[in-house]
């Protein structure tokens, strides 16, 4: 009991002093997950629009696949990227294994199906009357699509935030492809896993508290955005 309290107070003092190592780990986490999220959004949004507005063969299959991939186990993705990037792998010549870039690639793969699939759901659940209304007002096909995306905006933002929640919290993929190298590929979740293993609870706890706070903020943002999305509806 005493040791838990002691670890807690040491963890708090680490946070309050913004220890340099702690700072670097947090920044790298945000950099890796943030970049992955941006990449996933840049690819995922056009894909969701394509799936929402165009009819083409295999569309249904792609949608089911994205839905399935929303729940991809991070370790499996990590392993897959590892095999691709390992020295004897097909992309080994890029020498990306155990770099932040490898971690970004893995997390992009994890976030992409979430961003694409949830955005697609948001787009197709916009009331069809919006399409008709903008058509009656003289919109071009592109302008009609933009009007629909605009109506889906809160759902799309929620999709992006859900993607962020996913990558900020995962440890399996980045641990495998990043290797948890101190000062280079060490991020919050991997550090927590390792330091706990070593019995070094202060740093783990400090990072755990910060991670929890971030995840709380993400969910709070999600809550407010979803609330705003339905704010106007009275019919």
């Amino acid at each position: 009991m005493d040791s838990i309290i002691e670890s807690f107070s040491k963890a708090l003092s680490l946070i309050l002093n913004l220890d340099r190592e702690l700072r670097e780990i947090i920044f790298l986490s945000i950099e890796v997950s943030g970049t992955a999220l941006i990449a996933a959004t840049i690819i995922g949004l056009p894909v969701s629009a394509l799936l929402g507005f165009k009819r083409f063969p295999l569309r249904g299959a792609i949608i089911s696949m994205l839905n399935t991939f929303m729940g991809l186990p991070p370790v499996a993705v990590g392993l897959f990227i590892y095999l691709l990037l390992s020295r004897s792998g097909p992309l080994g010549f890029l020498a990306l294994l155990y770099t932040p870039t490898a971690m970004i690639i893995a997390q992009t793969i994890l976030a992409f199906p979430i961003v694409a699939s949830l955005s697609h759901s948001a787009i197709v659940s916009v009331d069809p009357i919006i399409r008709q209304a903008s058509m009656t007002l003289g919109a071009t096909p592109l302008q009609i699509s933009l009007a629909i995306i605009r109506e889906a905006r809160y759902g799309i933002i929620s999709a992006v935030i859900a993607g962020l929640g996913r990558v900020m919290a995962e440890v399996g993929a980045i641990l495998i492809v990043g290797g948890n190298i101190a000062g280079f590929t060490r991020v919050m979740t991997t550090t927590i896993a390792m330091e706990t293993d070593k019995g070094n609870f202060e740093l783990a706890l400090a990072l755990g508290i910060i991670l929890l706070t971030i995840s709380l903020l993400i969910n709070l943002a999600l809550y407010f955005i979803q609330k705003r999305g339905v704010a106007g509806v009275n019919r």
Partner: protein
Amino acid sequence: MRLGIEVSNITKKYNGDPILRNCSFSFKKPGVYILTGPNGCGKSTFLRISSLIEPPDSGTVIFFSDDNPVPADLQLRRRITLVLPKVGVFNATVFRNIAYGLKIRGIHGREAEEKVNRALEFVRLSHKKDQNGLTLSSGETQRLGIARALVIEPEILFLDEPTASVDQKNSLIIEEIILAMKKENGPTVIMTTHDQSQANRLADTLLVIRDGVLSAGGDRK
């Protein structure tokens, strides 16, 4: 100068069920045309087809300007508009809802603002300008629909049951708006209603659809 429509031999089936059969009419004179008929007789369908939102199975809808046919392209579609019975309000302020038609025509800033304000005044919604359009009452929603249509200065305005889910007071306001448009040499109005006395008050030309067939129910001018 003024846009007219020649609807010829329109037929429309839904799931093999004939809704409109060989409907023809010529909307050439300006004024208010009122279309009545029982529920499900095809009034809304007729409006969607004549406003180029939906194609007919057979027959033609041809627009004329001074007896010259006008090709049915985007440019023409932007000279007419249909207010749907459920309006289709965007999740945005009343102001932005009304400005939409201007925005997609590349009209922004001061010019757009002035036009929107005029439309708001015309339908008596100026005080609701900054409210989310989705929070309006049914009567206000219909007026929003009309303002959003009027702001683009259509030459033909189709109104599908603008007073269906609206109380007496709002219904009269909407009638006044339509009469005011007529007085100001506004658009040709082609409108549906279930209210026979309203039809008599507003119509220059009465039309009725019965068993899928459109006929003139008397010229009141």
